[in-house]
């Protein structure tokens, strides 16, 4: 049986038991059938597909990635219902484009698919947010923005998540970012000490609007004065 066949357990079980794959080929192992389905459905928007160590990678068109992921999520023959990760890859070679990667998993079909978009360097890097398809994309995209500076258009609250919000040095995981940061140590320290540690608890984040009456007096006062937390 193919490793991409649907497995049923119990009385409905067909022949064959799930087994751990052994001796996976480096390249050109059996591809995830979703890749072929994507190529059939979207044609030219699917630029290239690769199978590396048994995992299927699909390079898709930047403009249609939202449509493609939406179809993968909704189509009954795909049902990619779990977004495992959104991240980006930048290569040292300045000619090689930056890649944004979505790791999709289909729990009903036991499939894993890696969708990639290539963003040429030297242009503003923006892709569509998939927040409206997967709610888990919220923080994943924020982290990707924080570390790589990729704009996810359509994200409801795209701001820094790991670094503090007034961080001015840029995007730390970019190749042109020096490991020690751009500023001197004392300047970094001065800027980090200038942040307000209590500013992280925003009304929006904690949805404390319901519990407003139970808040401490000083916090009530500050929030009612319209103190926008964060920056």
């Amino acid at each position, binding site marked *: 049986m193919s490793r991409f066949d649907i497995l049923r357990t119990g009385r409905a079980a067909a022949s064959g038991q799930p087994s751990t794959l052994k001796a996976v080929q480096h390249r050109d192992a059996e591809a995830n059938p979703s890749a072929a389905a994507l190529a059939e459905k979207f044609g030219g928007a699917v630029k290239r597909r690769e199978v590396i160590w048994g995992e299927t990678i699909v390079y898709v068109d930047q403009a249609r990635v939202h449509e493609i992921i939406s179809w993968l999520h909704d189509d009954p023959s795909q049902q990619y219902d779990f977004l495992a990760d959104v991240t980006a890859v930048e290569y040292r070679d300045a000619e090689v484009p930056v890649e944004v990667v979505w790791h999709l998993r289909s729990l009903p079909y036991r499939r894993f698919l890696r969708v990639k978009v290539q963003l040429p360097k030297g242009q503003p890097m923006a892709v569509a947010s998939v927040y409206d398809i997967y709610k888990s994309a919220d923080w994943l995209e924020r982290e990707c923005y924080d570390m790589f500076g990729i704009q996810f258009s359509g994200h409801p609250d795209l701001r820094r998540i790991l*670094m*503090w919000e007034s961080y001015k040095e840029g995007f730390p995981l970019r190749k*042109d970012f*020096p*490991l*020690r940061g751009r500023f001197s140590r*004392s300047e970094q320290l001065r800027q980090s*000490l200038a942040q307000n540690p209590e500013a992280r608890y925003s009304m929006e984040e904690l949805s404390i609007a319901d519990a407003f009456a139970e808040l401490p007096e000083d916090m009530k006062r500050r929030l009612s004065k319209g103190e926008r937390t964060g920056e």
Partner: protein
Amino acid sequence: MGLSAPSEHRTVAYAPESQEGWVATRLDFLVNWARANSLWPMPFGTACCAIEFMATAASDFDLARFGMERMSFSPRQADVLICAGRVPFKLAPILRRIWQQMPQPKWCISMGACASTGGMFDNYAVVQGIDTIIPVDVYVPGCPPRPEALIYGIRMLQEKVKNERAADKGTRDEMEPDPKSQLYIPPSVIDELGEPFGNSVNQTRSGL
């Protein structure tokens, strides 16, 4: 923030002719003996050093032998801040806020290589030694230090506490950071200490 106005006596002057009388020294001895043997730690654990700190507090090594059986998770009831683990820049204002919330007299132990110097994390995100944020009394080396090492550091701190004198007003002042830079040590010194060394000299800084 301090209860009294800052005095000029920031250093302990050892001059036998100016020492207090017998009663004052005996009183000092009594107060210091009580203080040194009931230091309540405020554990500020951020990394693997905190695991060693837990081991130190657990029954095998048993910090309670030194009067530290009560972890004070409120800085307002703590005597000694034990910073165990690396401190990222995002945590720097929080650590300073906790330090400023602790009442005098207070002491600080920097536990492990990361808290003392930044350790192997010589990068954009990690504070290069918490002594750039708050004053530190005892540095405990190790990555992470074994419980014996932490206990040795605590014993050193107890020795320091036992040698304090009530007449020395400098030990009771709240140290205020420099109002301009908001740092305890001059920015030029921080930059100098943060210079790359060893294998890391090959890394270059771009801009600024």
